[in-house]
């Protein structure tokens, strides 16, 4: 049981570390010329992939802190995208148990819906509050890229970081623990 607890905190720390790595990559001053292809939102894809596999590795406050920090560092309106991602992950958290037997394609579709909803809501709210925002074209490309990169992130999380769905044995152990 101790091993499980320590593993839980290791995975949470791993999530924090990966989030920092992604922000770090974004901040590297490699290309200051505009007009480059927009980058997929790796942080959102990673968060959703983990929430659908092991919700306990990414608790709500952790997601909120990471996304707020990303908002602040990456020059986005602070708080809005963070709130939407937290809501999206709460929705996926609810959908996760039903997803276990549905196969990967169904999961991908659900994640794609969540990602699209987050971006669309973000745009609508910014438009309502008349915040200046980017052109629609690159934004759509970003959404598509984020959805496209999702399976890769899932593959990497499963084989690289060992974030798999809880098997029957694990969930039995979790049941005993509580």
């Amino acid at each position, binding site marked *: 049981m101790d091993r499980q607890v320590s593993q839980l905190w290791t995975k949470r720390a791993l999530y924090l570390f990966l989030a920092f790595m992604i922000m770090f990559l974004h901040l590297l*001053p490699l*290309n200051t010329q505009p007009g480059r292809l927009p980058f997929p939102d790796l942080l959102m894809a990673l968060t959703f992939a983990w929430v659908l596999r092991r919700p306990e590795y990414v608790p*709500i406050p952790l997601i909120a802190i990471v996304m707020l920090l990303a908002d602040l560092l990456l020059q986005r309106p*602070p708080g809005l995208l963070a709130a939407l991602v937290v809501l999206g992950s709460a929705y996926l958290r609810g959908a996760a148990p039903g997803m276990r037997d549905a196969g990967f394609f169904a999961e991908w579709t659900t994640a794609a819906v969540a990602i699209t909803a987050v971006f669309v809501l973000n745009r609508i709210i910014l438009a309502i509050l008349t915040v200046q925002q980017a052109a629609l074209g690159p934004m759509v490309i970003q959404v598509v890229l984020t959805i496209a990169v999702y399976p890769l992130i899932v593959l990497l999380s499963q084989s690289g970081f060992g974030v798999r769905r809880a098997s029957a044995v694990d969930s039995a152990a979790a*049941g005993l623990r509580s």
Partner: protein
Amino acid sequence: MAKDRSQRDEYTTPLRRLLLGIVVLCLLGIFLVWRIDSPRVERFRAQVVDTVVPSMDWAMVPVTAVVNLVRDFQSYQRLSEQNQELRSELRLMRAWKEAALQLEQENARLLDLNNVRLDPRLTYITGVVMADSGSPFRQSVLLNVGERDGIMDGWATMDGIGVVGRISGVGPDTARVILMTDASSAIPATIQPSGQTALIAGDNTPSPAVEFLENRELVRPGDRVVTSGDGGVFPGGLLIGQITADPGGRLRVRLSADFERLEFLRVLRFHSAPPIEDSGDIVGPRRPETAIAPAEAGDG
């Protein structure tokens, strides 16, 4: 076991909902405060960036250096080709150098004749680019000089040749430069030789657009664009770039500064810049009271 789990859910689900509600409300609250009172939150953002980014610097510098090394290596592959190019460019430059030297001498003579003193207030601080904006929709870079070095909001920033942008957001050790290519950047400029004034407004493309131009007929591609100094925010006479026309016939500016590689930037100390304290007001007719009050004071 199933019963066990459902019991657990009975307690954890409402708690989780409450937590979710509180977290989302907090985040939306931050967003609303940002929307209402942007300068204060932006200052907070500058502070956060100031604490987080310099601590990443030890890793950023080598990674950036390695990637640039690889890129340079790729360009070595067409070395002889480049050598040819450089040779012909050098020949051209020699001719220009002669012309420049002559002009410089003439200029010095004329200045001496007219007893002109150049503005001594325009000194500069050089900073190193630490990070970019991190988002494809915003064009800005972070410099490693800040409040400690006396940097203030609104100061102009140049690379060796042309204007790059202006300071917006200063932390103790870092300052953010909004580049001219950012969609929120607009800089008053004069187009020479016709002397037309215009706004150079960025739109997330490599060459910003020329807006509010009075007479298009007088402007031709190839004309020089310099800052006009209107509004007292920027010093006048800094080189921005050259006019080009895009396929749609719209006038744009090809920037002189090398935006491909921004590494060292000069921040010009310019003291006429008024400090920006609050968010902008609605532009409209002035209220009569404020217009009358000074007049009365003057009479009495």
